[in-house]
């Protein structure tokens, strides 16, 4: 399984994401935002956390228009997998690959802490290592994680079982306590919590490693 992790100016969780994919058993290539093509044979694209372009204009807005994104959209369009974490989730909503937008936290403060998440669906390559309704511990670190969608979109996400994770205790005002959502084909996941920061005992939780192991084990070819 081949993963490609994109680095933008201001990404800061790119190396952690590389290590997490490798721990799951993937072969990982690193890609610069100015590259125009993903490496041949890429199965999954990782869009990391951080503060791409200093969060200028809107979080993820400039990154979502960078040269590599055309190739990411074509990859997703032909059924390739994409995982966007934190700033990566913001980038995915800005590209339109996922619905909604991530706004300033309701309490206006940057939140960095371990949180309990409900795994809302086990029916995806990302969440297949868990049982639905299982509670997992994964840290968040964000200022703009307040997920917003229209009522119609929320109903659609729920009807199609596309809410991947919800917060056990909503830290940021997200609609429906949503922490992560899937695309219609269930191969694109955006999530605010950082599974790549819950990989080994020293992180305080190893629950994130379940996601990477499951993902590498079950990914269907694009």
């Amino acid at each position: 399984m081949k993963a490609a992790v994109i680095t933008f100016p201001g990404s800061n969780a790119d190396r952690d994401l590389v290590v997490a994919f490798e721990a799951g058993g993937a072969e990982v290539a690193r890609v610069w935002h100015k590259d125009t093509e993903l490496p041949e044979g890429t199965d999954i694209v990782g869009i990391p956390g951080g503060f791409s372009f200093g969060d200028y204009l809107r979080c993820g807005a400039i990154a979502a228009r960078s040269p590599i994104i055309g190739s990411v959209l074509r990859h997703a369009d032909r059924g390739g997998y994409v995982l966007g974490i934190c700033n990566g989730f913001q980038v995915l909503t800005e590209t339109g690959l996922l619905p909604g937008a991530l706004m300033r936290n309701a309490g206006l403060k940057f939140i960095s802490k371990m949180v309990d998440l409900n795994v809302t669906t086990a029916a995806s390559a990302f969440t297949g290592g868990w049982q639905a309704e299982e509670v997992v511990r994964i840290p968040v670190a964000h200022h703009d994680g307040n997920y917003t969608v229209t009522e119609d979109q929320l109903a659609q996400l729920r009807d199609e079982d596309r809410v991947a994770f919800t917060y056990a205790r909503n830290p940021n005002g997200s609609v429906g306590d949503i922490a992560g959502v899937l695309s219609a084909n269930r191969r694109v996941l955006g999530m605010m919590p950082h599974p790549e920061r819950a990989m080994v005992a020293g992180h305080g939780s190893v629950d994130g490693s379940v996601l990477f192991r499951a993902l590498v084990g079950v990914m269907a070819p694009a």
Partner: protein
Amino acid sequence: MKARVHVMLKAGVLDPQGEAVRHALGTLGFEGVEGVRQGKVIEIDLAGDDKAGAEGQVKAMCEKLLANTVIEKYDIEIV
């Protein structure tokens, strides 16, 4: 020629920053502040003097980058 773009959250989208400003104004003793919405103003210097063409061009900029039309609306002023 200059284009001025006003980007605001759409009606109905909660604006936590605007709310914080409203609270602060109340704390300072300003009475009767019923609501505050915070947005952005973006000024763009443009070559040429074709106002109609500029408006179309800036609209495309708004749709592609300057506003996130999922949550924001925009107004364009050519000055």
